[in-house]
């Protein structure tokens, strides 16, 4: 079966600074794939290259079709939800408005989607007229995932959901991503520094170093891998 998302020899740069030097990776439908690596390795840029937020060369195919020069607003309409670095929360707007924005490209009623999202995050109901910026970091991360779910994505790109959150909240977030994948069949490309949790919930993983894929394999294999254990898992 052809992968849902495939990058072949993707290069990207910010002005003169090259961030990706030929990244090749595949994400099969229904899987969680983790993209690991240190700061500056090119993880965020890889997601941006898929969404068309950065100028790129090389080949990106989604659902068998090549993505060419489309901008992020087009990619979003293809069923790819991207929760960016910094979560992309509209902090000046209410929780409810943030959720509505997730479904902004669709016509018709969104009540069904809202109900679906509330089964994952029942607490959102009570907070819906609160300004999103006043939520805690963990709540904002969950709101970002909820907003992405309102897009009814076939694929979720999510950038460092654990950043700056307490360990308990981090496990909660990873549990939600796992449930989302299992119950809704959403394919997930997860960018993380938290290798341990990411390898625990993912099927496959890629490790980026200085803009290239340094290691790849099933998550179990990588968790056993000597060098990865030492550099990324710390034991």
């Amino acid at each position, binding site marked *: 079966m052809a992968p849902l998302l495939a990058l072949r020899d993707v290069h990207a740069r910010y002005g003169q600074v090259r961030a990706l030097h030929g990244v090749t990776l595949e994400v099969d439908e229904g899987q969680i794939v983790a993209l690991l690596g240190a700061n500056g390795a090119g993880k965020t840029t890889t997601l941006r290259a898929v969404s068309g*937020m950065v100028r790129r060369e090389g080949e990106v195919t989604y659902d068998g079709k090549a993505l060419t020069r489309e901008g992020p*607003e087009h990619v*979003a309409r293809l069923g790819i939800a*991207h929760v960016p670095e910094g979560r*992309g929360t*509209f902090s000046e707007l209410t929780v409810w408005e943030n959720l509505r*924005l997730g479904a902004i490209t669709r016509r018709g009623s969104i009540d069904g989607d809202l109900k679906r999202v509330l089964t994952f995050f029942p607490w959102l109901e009570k907070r819906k007229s609160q300004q999103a910026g006043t939520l805690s970091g963990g709540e904002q991360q969950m709101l970002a995932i909820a907003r992405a779910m309102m897009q009814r994505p076939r694929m979720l790109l999510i950038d460092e959901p654990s950043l700056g959150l307490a360990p308990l909240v981090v496990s909660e977030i990873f549990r939600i991503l796992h449930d989302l994948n299992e119950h809704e069949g959403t394919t997930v490309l997860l960018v993380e520094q938290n290798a341990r949790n990411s390898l625990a919930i993912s099927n496959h993983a890629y490790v980026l170093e200085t803009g290239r894929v340094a290691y790849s394999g099933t998550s179990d294999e990588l968790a056993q891998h000597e060098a990865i254990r030492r550099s990324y898992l710390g034991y």
Partner: protein
Amino acid sequence: MPVNLRPWIVPALLAGVVIFLLVGSIESALFAQQTVSGLANGGIYASLGLALVLIYRATQVINFAQGAIATFTTYVAWQFMQWGLGYWGAFVVTLFVAFAGGIAIQLVAIRPVERRGNVLTVVIASIGVLIAVEGAVGWIWGPEIRFMPSAFPVRTYHVGGVAFSLQDLGTIGVSIASVVVLWALFQFTKLGLAMRAAALRPNAARLVGVRVSWMLSLGWGLAAVLGAIAGMMAAASPSVLLQPNMMDGVLIYAFAAAVLGGLESPAGAVIGGLAIGAMLNLLSSYVSWVTPQLLLPAAFVVMLIVLLVKPSGLFGRTRVKRV
């Protein structure tokens, strides 16, 4: 425990102004009349100020061409009336022309330079538009002063010994109605939500599928509509004549209104406009040496004081960037 008074300063100030205007109006008929005609001017400043805020919020740029565009559309309304359309017919057609014109200007003159990403370049482009549009007005309609009819008959209403002109009341009504319609658009429609998202966080908005550049064009269209309303109301008022530079002064008052309100705040621009309109009118009728020539400088003084004392205005937020 020290009580934090800061959040109460602005509401207290506004309540003070409202009480002052109310008590004054109850005490003196002249005061009441001057307050209402000041508020009518203020409604015009509020509409144009709101147009400035709409564009500023989305692009962080003051649109210097806003006044010229308003003048142009007012001439369009005048022209339609010359061709035999009734006032409200011409009014509505002009709003459509303004909407399309605002979008066209954004597409032709602003978007190409905006893409290069520098605020100063966009400001210069907007000054270019100002010169071009003002030139076009002179070229098409000539420098003569035209007579712009008013939507409202010359009549006064008497309430308890106070004579209110229908013109003033109508201007206030139209300004308030346009502000309310705009507010409802932003608050209750999907399009409004998308426009707000695009202005607040363009990159995040793109990621949920909002066509941000199209939202910016629509913003210019709406701003031009507000400007057209302000222009048509202004040209019908006794203090402004329909001529190619008629909105130059009004634009300064609108700047002052927007700055007073906080530049980022639509409600602030409206309240700022009404406050400046009422205050300046009272100032000129009660302080003998304040002649009309001093009102424009007075608006500048208001702007300067706000920028020095509280640059974020009455309702603006100080931007805090979280890393």
